[in-house]
């Protein structure tokens, strides 16, 4: 494992480049269960930026821990949002995947919660684990969904499932998405990474310039949708934050 950028904290994010053009960005904060703390977000951004400066990369695999792909905003981040100090960097994270020069494969072996799920859904190829849980539980904290989830989730998961996840704040297992959405693979957990590597290997047999051109084209619509979603979500967050109960809901409902 070798990060090209010193801003990547290896305790939080591990970056590995392979000779055949696959870069694996692993979210590996065991203690924080890959929660989106300020330090974590900074490292993740730096990892993606370091990949941009690596000329031979043809595909990126974004993965997490076996039991936690990404657990979304930390309590501290949520409280900052409720204080009106909206950390824009956190809320724009999916743009890292959408704007990456090459295709991004999200290998979501572990649970993906809230913003963590929104992050994975911004990938070009998506893998889930049959028994892991996935949810967009923003409303539990009195907040409307953010990180582009309001528009990207219906696009990827299908409107019916995405709406139910966002309205109920409930979680579904990976197997529940099978056949109802644009998820590439739903597999037993211990097969997810191997399949992600297999897909990456099949991508990297093609020329980088062609892949870059195609990525830009295939992501263009989602980039526009994401931008529009963020504008609307920011406006909704302003309204939510006028409700003084939002901070209280975060305090009461955040599961440690």
């Amino acid at each position, binding site marked *: 494992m070798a990060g090209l950028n010193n801003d990547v904290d290896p305790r939080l994010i591990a970056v590995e480049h392979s000779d055949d053009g696959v870069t694996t960005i692993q979210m590996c904060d065991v203690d924080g269960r890959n929660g989106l703390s300020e330090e974590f977000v900074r490292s993740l951004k730096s990892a993606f930026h370091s990949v941009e400066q690596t000329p031979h990369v043809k595909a990126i695999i974004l993965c997490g821990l076996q039991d936690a792909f990404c657990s979304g905003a930390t309590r501290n981040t949520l409280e900052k949002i409720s204080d009106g100090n909206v950390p824009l960097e956190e809320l724009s994270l999916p743009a890292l995947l959408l704007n990456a020069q090459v295709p991004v494969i999200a290998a979501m072996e572990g*649970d993906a919660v809230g913003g963590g799920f929104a992050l994975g859904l911004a990938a070009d190829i998506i893998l889930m684990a049959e028994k892991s849980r996935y949810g967009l539980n923003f409303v539990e904290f009195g907040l409307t969904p953010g990180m582009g989830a309001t528009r990207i989730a219906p696009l990827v998961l299908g409107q019916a499932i995405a709406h139910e996840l966002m309205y109920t704040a*409930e*979680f579904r297992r990976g197997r529940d998405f099978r056949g109802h959405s644009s998820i590439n693979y739903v597999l037993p957990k211990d097969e997810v990474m191997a399949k992600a590597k297999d897909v990456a290997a099949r991508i990297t047999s093609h020329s980088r310039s062609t892949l870059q051109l195609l990525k830009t084209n295939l992501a263009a619509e989602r980039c526009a949708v994401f931008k529009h979603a963020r504008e609307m979500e920011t406006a909704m967050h302003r309204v939510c934050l006028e409700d003084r109960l939002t901070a209280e809901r975060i305090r*009461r*409902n955040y*599961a*440690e």
Partner: protein
Amino acid sequence: MDRAEILSVIKRNILEIVEDIDESDLDPQKSMKDYGATSLDIVEVVSSSMRELRVKVPRSELNSIENIDGLVDALHAAALQKAL
């Protein structure tokens, strides 16, 4: 609604929600984590049980609970409070 009824609802939800659990007779003195429950499993067991029992306890009050018995106590107290 007595403690036994609450315990039976919680036990049923644990058996339904926690994957690969092979014990049909759960020990209330143990934590759900002892049976391999993840934090999201626990959230779902608690939410499902509260929904079924029609009681609500803030998560912040549940974070310090150490075993299944503790959860029964918390939901029982909420049920008694609601009945007042």
